[in-house]
Structures are given as C-alpha cells and as structure tokens.
C-alpha cells in the first residue's frame, strides 16, 4: 500500500447539484408517467418538461463531475491507493447490478416453477383453478393468460442468436483491445475498441428491430406475465448495453486523447468490466428467456 500521503479531494459542488437533478427527474418522472398513462389525472403541473430538465441537469452535472476526476487523473493526483478504491468500488457496483437483475430472474423462475403450475390447479391451487380460471392450462412461454389474453413467444434462433454471437464477438474484440492497452499497442487498441463500440451499436439496433417484430406478432408489454418478464429483462439489459456502449465510446475518445497508460487505466478497465457484465447477463437471458 502506498500510504505515505493520502489524497482527499477538495470540496465539490457536484454531489449536491446532482441530487437536485435527481430530485427533479424523480418528481417530474412520476407526474410524466401518470399524465401519459392515466387519462383521468388532473395535472397540477406538467411533469414532462421537469423530467427532461432534471435528466439533462443530471447528465451535465455528472459530466462536469467526471471532468474534474479526469483532470485529477491526468494531473497525476491519483495514487495507486485511490486507484484501488475506484477498482473495488466499481466491482461492488457491478455486484449491485447483478442483484438488480437477480430480482427479475428470480421473479421469472418463481413464475415458471410455482405460479403457473398453481394457477393450473397443482398443489394447493386446485380450488383457485376450479373457481376462477377452469380453462387455464400451464405452459411456458405463457401464450394464454388466465384472463384469456393471447400472445406469441419470441423464438431463440433468429435475431436473438445473432445478437448472442455479436455480444460474444464484442467480448473477444474488447479483450484484444485490453491486451493491446496493457502492451502499449495503440493502433490495435483503437481498432478493436472501435469495433467493440460498433458491435454494441449493431446489437442495440437489432434489439430495437426485434421489439418492432415482437409488437407486430402480438408480444407486447401488457400481454401477461411472459411479455412483462420478456420486456423488463431484455429492456433493462438493453439499457445497460446502451450505458456500456456510451462508456466504451467515452473511453475510446480518452484513448485518442492519450489519457491511459498501462498503470493508469482504471476508467478503461471499469468500462471493460461493465461490458463483460452485460455480456454475461445476456448469456443468462438467452438461455432462460429465449431458449429454454
């Protein structure tokens, strides 16, 4: 541990201003959602402008905050110890993201293994089945809900399989870029990181195409529990791929500006870890949501 001198940053206005942005986003968002989904909501004020203002505010503040951090890093103020703090912090953050997805995966397995059989009369569900929905049959994907809504499942071997291949390849290109960074091969690094970003964008485009296709064939968010789980799991994954792509794009710009060296590349590695995390989540998604 390099402990001869610790670095404690100067006081900073960004935490407080970011909180204000978050608050505007939350208050605006709650009203915006209500006003756009409930016809009878009498608006005391319109949530939409506040929501977007808050979001923009938050993004600007975070950008300024990270600019400060980047300046400190480039200015050589970061010690190995601070680098360790950042690294550990990022790993625990990814762990918290894993647990967020775990909530939705848990909901899916609870639905598949317990709710659906019970609704079809297994175990203690016999009377519920008999009295409420005697025609309901257990199946997965659930193409007909107890109240009779029907939907079509999304097959695994079309776009989803292509997307799986894209993410797997992107993991390989990113790893090649990582090795190039550590070995100081700038050309390879830029080439393969740019390739990873492009693959991320292609993934997102195909995912959007898949959603359009899903809505065309009747797989919608409100088509029962299968649609709910399908769109929340893949939707949150897509949101994370978007964040990861932006992350990699920004570190690519920083590579072009010459910010990283093999012993000062925390932000680059954090982006890479994040990317591998969204890859792994996708593999679970592909196997459990699309395939089995």
């Amino acid at each position: 541990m390099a402990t001869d001198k610790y670095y404690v940053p100067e006081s900073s206005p960004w935490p407080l201003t970011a909180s204000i942005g978050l608050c505007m986003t939350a208050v605006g968002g709650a009203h915006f959602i209500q006003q756009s989904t409930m016809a009878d909501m009498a608006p005391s004020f319109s949530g939409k402008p506040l929501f977007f203002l808050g979001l923009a505010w938050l993004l600007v503040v975070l950008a300024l905050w990270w600019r400060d951090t980047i300046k400190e890093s480039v200015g050589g103020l970061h010690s190995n110890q601070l680098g360790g703090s950042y690294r550990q912090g990022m790993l625990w953050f990814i762990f918290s993201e894993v647990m967020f997805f775990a909530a939705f995966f848990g909901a899916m397995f609870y639905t598949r293994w317990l709710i659906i059989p019970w609704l079809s009369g297994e175990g203690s569900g016999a009377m519920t089945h008999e009295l409420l929905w005697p025609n309901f049959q257990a199946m997965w994907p659930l193409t007909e809900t107890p109240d009779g809504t029907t939907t079509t499942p999304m097959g695994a071997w079309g776009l989803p399989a292509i997307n799986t291949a894209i993410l797997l390849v992107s993991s390989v290109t990113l790893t090649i870029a990582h090795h190039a960074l550590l070995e100081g091969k700038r050309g390879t690094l830029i080439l393969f990181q740019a390739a990873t970003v492009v693959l991320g964008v292609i993934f997102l485009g195909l995912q959007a195409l898949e959603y359009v296709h899903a809505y065309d064939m009747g797989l919608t968010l409100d088509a029962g529990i299968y649609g709910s789980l399908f769109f929340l799991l893949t939707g949150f994954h897509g949101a994370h791929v978007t964040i990861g792509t932006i992350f990699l794009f920004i570190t690519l710009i920083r590579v072009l500006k010459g910010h990283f060296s093999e012993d000062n590349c925390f932000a680059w590695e954090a982006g890479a870890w994040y990317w591998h995390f969204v890859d792994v989540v996708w593999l679970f998604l592909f196997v459990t949501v699309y395939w089995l």
Partner: protein
Amino acid sequence: MSTAAATHDDHHDHHHAPTGLKRWLFSTNHKDIGTLYLWFSFAMFLVGGFMAMVIRAELLEPGMQFVDPEFFNQMTTVHGLVMVFGAVMPATVGLANWMIPLMIGAPDMALPRMNNWSFWILPFAFGILIFAVLMSAFGAGNPSAPNFGWTFYAPLSTKYGPASTDLFILSVHMMGISSIMGAINVVVTVFNMRAPGMTLMKMPLFVWTWLITAFLLIAVIPVLAGAVTMMLTDRHFGTSFFDAAGGGDPVLFQHVFWFFGHPEVYIMILPSFGIVSAIIPAFARKPLFGYASMVYATASIALLSFVVWAHHMFTVGMPLAGTLFFMYMTMLISVPTGVKVFNWVATMWRGSLTFELPMKWAIAFVILFTCGGLSGLMLAITPVDFQYHDTYFVVAHFHYVLVTGAIFSIFAAAYYWLPKWSGVMPSKLLGELHFWNSLISANLLFFPMHFVGLAGMPRRYADYALQFADYNFWISIGGFWFGLSQVIFLIVAIRCAMKKGEPAPAKPWEGAEGLEWEVPSPAPFHTFDTPPVIK
C-alpha cells in the same frame, strides 16, 4: 499519538477546513458528512415520532377521535418508512462516516465526493415523501399519501395505490441509490484504507459489523429497486407481475419485498451490535469476550438472513416444505445471536463495571433487544404465528428490536462518542433524565402491546374493540412520554454542538480502547494524514 495533529499543518496547508454554508453543502470530509447524517436522522426521528404521536392519539380511546381511518393508514405507512429509511439507517451511516476512518486510521472515506452525494440525495428523497403527507393533510382536495403500510404489498400499492404511490416509488429509488453508494464507500474504505498493521481481525467490531451491513445493503437494496420497478410497470405499463389474471401473483411481491426486507432488519441491527461491543468492554474494563466468535456470529447472521424471508409470509400459504425450511432457518439465527448476547454478558462478568450514560444505554440494549429477540423466536414458530400474524404482538416484537434495540444503541453511541465529536461532555443530568424517562416510557409503550396482540388486537386499524381500551390508554401514555423524552436529547445535542459543557479530554472514558481516542477531542478536521502505527 500526536502524528495526526502535528503533521496537519505542514502537510495540508492548502486544504484548510472550508467555512460557512459551503463547508456543509459541498463537503468531502467524513466528519462533516457524518454530522449531517446524524442531524438529518434525528430530524427524521422527530418527524416519524410525530406521526407515531398521531397514531397513539387516535388509539388513546376506542372510537374515532382525531383523524379519519384513511389518514390513519397514511400515518402508519409513512411513520414506518421514515423511521426505517430516514431515522435508523442514516443514523448508522452517520456513525460509520464519523467512526470508521478514525477507527482504522484512515484520513477519510475512500470516495469522499460520492460520500457527500449519498447524503444529499436523502433530504430530497424524504422531502418528496413528506410533501405527499403535507398535501394529504393540508392540500387542495387532500390527495392521499401512501397508505398501504410500510411493506407496500401489492395489490394495495399497485391496483389500489393512490396517485402519490409513484412519487413514493421514485423516492425509494433515490434512497436506494444513496444506500448503495454509502455501502460501497464503507466496504472500499474498510478493505482499502486501513492503516498498515490494522489487519482484519484487529479491526474494532463496529467496523466489522458495518462491513457486513454494507455487504447486505449492496446485495438487497437493488432487489428493492426491482420490486418498486415492477410496481411501477404494473401500475402504468400494463405488466402482470403481481396480477394473477395475467399469470403473475401478488404473493410474488411479498417474496421479492421480503428478500430485501429481512436482510434489511439486520442492516438496521448489525451496526448496533458493533456499538454495544465497543461500549461494554470500555465500562467493564475488560477486553471483549470472544472477539473472533463475534465476527463469525455476525457473518453467520448476515448469511442466514438471506434464507429466512418467507417467515413474514407464513399465513399467505406456501408448500409445507417451504414453511418448515423457513421456520428452521429462522430459529437457527438465534444461535449466532445468542453467542453475541452471551459474549456481552461474559464481558461484563467480573469486570470493574461502572455505569456511565453509554453503558446504561448499552445494558438496556442487551436486555431489551434480547426480549425482542425472544418474541421473534415465538413468531418464528409457524403454527403459533398463525395466531400472532398481523397483531400488535408483531408490533411489540419489532419495536423492541428497533426502538429499544437499534435506537437505544444509537443513543449509546451518541453519548459514547459525543465528547469526541464535539469536544464537550454531554450533560450528565440531562442524559440521566433522557435515559430513565426513555427506558420506563418505552417499556410502558411497547410491553402491553404483547398482551393486546396475544388477545387478538390487529395492527394498522384506527379503532379497536372495547376490551383493549385500558391497555391502549397506557400504551398511548407511554408513547407521548417516550416522544417528549426525546426532546431532552435534542437539548443535549444542541448543547454539545454549541460547546456548552465540561471540556472533554482526548480519552474521556477510562477503559475505552481504539484509535479514535488517540486523537484530540474534538477530533481535528483532518486526522491521520499519515497512517498511525498499529501496535
């Protein structure tokens, strides 16, 4: 050790304590942020306490007196939310901020700016929640504040939730962001910022318990975020997570919620175990009995807390194998908890005991927390839980562990470390008044709840059957008495903040151990610029 004060000037002359409003608003200093957390949590304690006073006023007599049942439901709901997320959790985070860097010889928390962000999210998140209550009490048309209980079960909070539920959902998301960042900061500080020689098994137990608490927070707060997200999409985007007609299940909500909710109760109590494990050895003038077993017991409790959640749901209906599993796992938790209680008692055994204020609170904690633990053991037994479920017996149980448990230990911590924070000794007279009034009134308030609960009085109702009238009268008297007693602490704290009182030496408690007592009182703005030597 004078390194901290001595090296301060020459090492950090560019980095003096900022002054005025900027010092508090833009802080990157763990002590200032800790102070903010502690004042915020005490303010929330008073706000949540005021709501409890409304509840107890309505229940003073049978029949409807002051508020209508709809508003009563909002009071029980927001009282619970404010106390759990606004009072207890931020108080322990405040203690962590103040004490962990001092205890492990670090100059500050590992990520000081993120630390400040964790704090500043909270006033906004609770501002949103309290705004909903004020609108309900005084606003045009009185739109309802959240009214579904602090556990916000679906479908009460989805299909039947008031419009303010969406504000509630987003404020919970904000509290979650704050908690996760705060917890990441603690874990990283403990793993990465310890002074050389401060090995893990030399760390004070408060640091250990907070490390494990932080792990629990990072693991379960995202699950809570998942739960409220599913609520939001069920309410507005037509999903069917908690709707059986679409193939979901309202019971799924309870599973997701309690997967968060049970570790959450340990999040609130584990730091208390750490506090008491610091105070009892100091006033027994003996090292803590069974230090290593305390560490392992804390870790066991934390791991077991992930596999007991459905004991909150015995009456909901579950396969027999599930019921038995959750019952036995719950009972198993009493083993490591028992290890702790016996260790505290063994620490006091044949010690040179003195009963200064922190010790009084700590001993009250050990006895009354054990009382709450035993009623928890009763609740864990599935067949009898069918009788206790949703009665005042449950209310008695969790107020024993949370008020006479968590909050008593937080007061113990405040009296123990106030000299270090403020540089003056808290008033003995006021402290004694605060302690004895709180102790007697809390038991008057919560103990009879066991009896009315066993006799069948359900929780969360604005009215009750006549046979419960006498007990409820005394419960309410105890409630008002306990509420007023806390004003004494407000005076104690303000006096310390204004430096009124006897000046405190660096180590005001003769038997106290730890690095925090080796820096002057009040602790200087920056401590341990260079790492201290650990013997």
